């Protein structure tokens, strides 16, 4: 009944271009922050519904409607269980629903940001946020080498297997022990790669000048201005809802 793969489909990146993906990374990050903050400013169910509804334009712009609905459908059972569990501890059904909606809203916001933003853009964003280049670059390097090291692991596993070595055998402790002949070569390969990488960075004048320039240029288009204004409006509207609705619907006051 629970199919984790379809549930996680929401985070699967298709690397497809969309109106959203072409936005300035700063805009995308700002919208992401807005939709993380809004659900957190109040546990009120109004805020949660408001936040979800206001994300619809972003969902459409990022072509993720299908992915999100499929993912939510696969999670129905899980969501119901969450609501029930919540109810059993709080005895407040509206509050329970509200909490689960908050979770869903934040997941959707993260998914839109993560699937619609190129990892390299996140690196650029980090340096734009005044994070030192060495740190934002470590992030890029990590992304660059994850697939390389994953290939290494596969290669080691297959070459050990071809010598008749079985990893998946025995109980838990036995299996942990059986990982060692995979781990040791892995560490050696990773160290060697790291050394050669350092050598390559040295020849590419990495870190020699504090006047490092940037080749990437992100434009601020009309759509960026519109979307930033949209985000600001939502922040203001959210705050207004929090401060006003409580008097209108005293029953829902939480």
């Amino acid at each position, binding site marked *: 009944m629970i199919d984790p793969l379809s549930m996680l489909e929401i985070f699967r990146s298709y690397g497809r271009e969309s109106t959203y993906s072409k936005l300035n990374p700063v805009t995308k990050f700002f919208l992401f922050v807005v939709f993380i903050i809004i659900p957190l400013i109040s546990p009120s169910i109004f805020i949660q519904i408001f936040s979800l509804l206001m994300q619809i334009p972003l969902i459409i712009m990022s072509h993720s409607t299908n992915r999100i609905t499929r993912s939510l459908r696969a999670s129905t059972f899980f969501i119901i269980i969450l609501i029930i569990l919540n109810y059993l501890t709080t005895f407040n059904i509206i509050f329970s629903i509200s909490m689960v909606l908050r979770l869903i809203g934040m997941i959707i916001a993260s998914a839109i940001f993560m699937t619609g933003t190129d990892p390299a853009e996140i690196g650029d964003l980090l340096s734009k946020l005044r994070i030192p280049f060495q740190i934002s670059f470590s992030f890029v390097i990590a992304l*660059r080498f994850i*697939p390389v090291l994953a290939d290494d692991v596969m290669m080691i596993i297959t070459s050990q297997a071809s010598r008749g070595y079985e990893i998946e055998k025995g109980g838990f402790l036995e299996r942990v022990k059986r990982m060692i002949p995979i781990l040791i070569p892995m560490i050696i390969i990773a160290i060697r790669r790291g050394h*050669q990488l350092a050598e*390559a960075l040295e020849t590419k004048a990495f870190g020699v000048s504090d006047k490092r320039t940037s*080749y990437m240029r992100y434009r601020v288009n009309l759509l960026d201005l519109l979307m930033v204004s949209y985000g600001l409006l939502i922040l203001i509207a959210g705050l207004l809802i929090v401060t006003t609705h409580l008097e209108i619907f005293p029953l829902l006051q939480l």
Partner: protein
Amino acid sequence: MGGIIIFFDIMKYVRKMIEIEGVTFTYEGSSKPALSDVNLRIEEGDFLLVTGLSGSGKSTLLRLLNGLIPHFYRGKMEGRVLVDGIDTREASVASLSKKVGLVFQNPDNQIVTLRVDREIAFGLENLGFPREEIVRRIEEVLKKLRIEHLRYRPTNELSGGEKQLVAIASVLAMRPKIIALDEPTSELDPFSSARIAYILDILNREGITVVVAEHKLDLFSPFANKMIVMANGHIVEQGSPRELLYKKELMIHGVRPPSVVKLSYEYGVSENKPLTLGELLVALRGR
């Protein structure tokens, strides 16, 4: 007599790009020198082929050229290396990177960004070049290597041969006078290897000095004008590829001559010293 004087006059104008003078280098923690009393002169426009068994010191020699030795690798160095008149001990690797570009064996470990154009931009960004200049150079090197179509491709998705071409492109973007490559084709298929050799020939004809450490002599020797053979940290043979590859002593140093050389001995045309199949055919026809 007059001829000799004119000869020496001309020699003054042949620019020496690199002079390695009496270099002995021992890596830190190692007891045996990786290079012993190496003397070598590389002139502008040379295509130098470096060969020799594994562990003979080829990589160590190449690391001398852009100052990785003694700046990045610690150890004991005697003698000196002059690159375009500058002593490498007195210049940083970064400043030498504008003169000597170094390409390594494993393309995966020298690509540091996620997209081809960014990879080519990386060194220039580090050196603080203005954006317009970076864009101009990216377009220039992509065109030169005929890989314009790779411009926006993620580096993770490239084939080994494409990665190596991108690595060469990123080095060329710094417009070095010399490009040195350490076994650039050892992880590549025959087709990609041939492509690298062909590209190096084009670059060399455009005036770039090429130094390449290689085992694939079939592929590279026709393009080289100079060749050295290394063994145990010494340069044991030095000359033109045509001269060296027809020397019997080569086998002693573990260098196996290319198949054209073997064939020309078999057919008895070794005195013509052909290096390519074309030359072999001409020699056979003229017999």
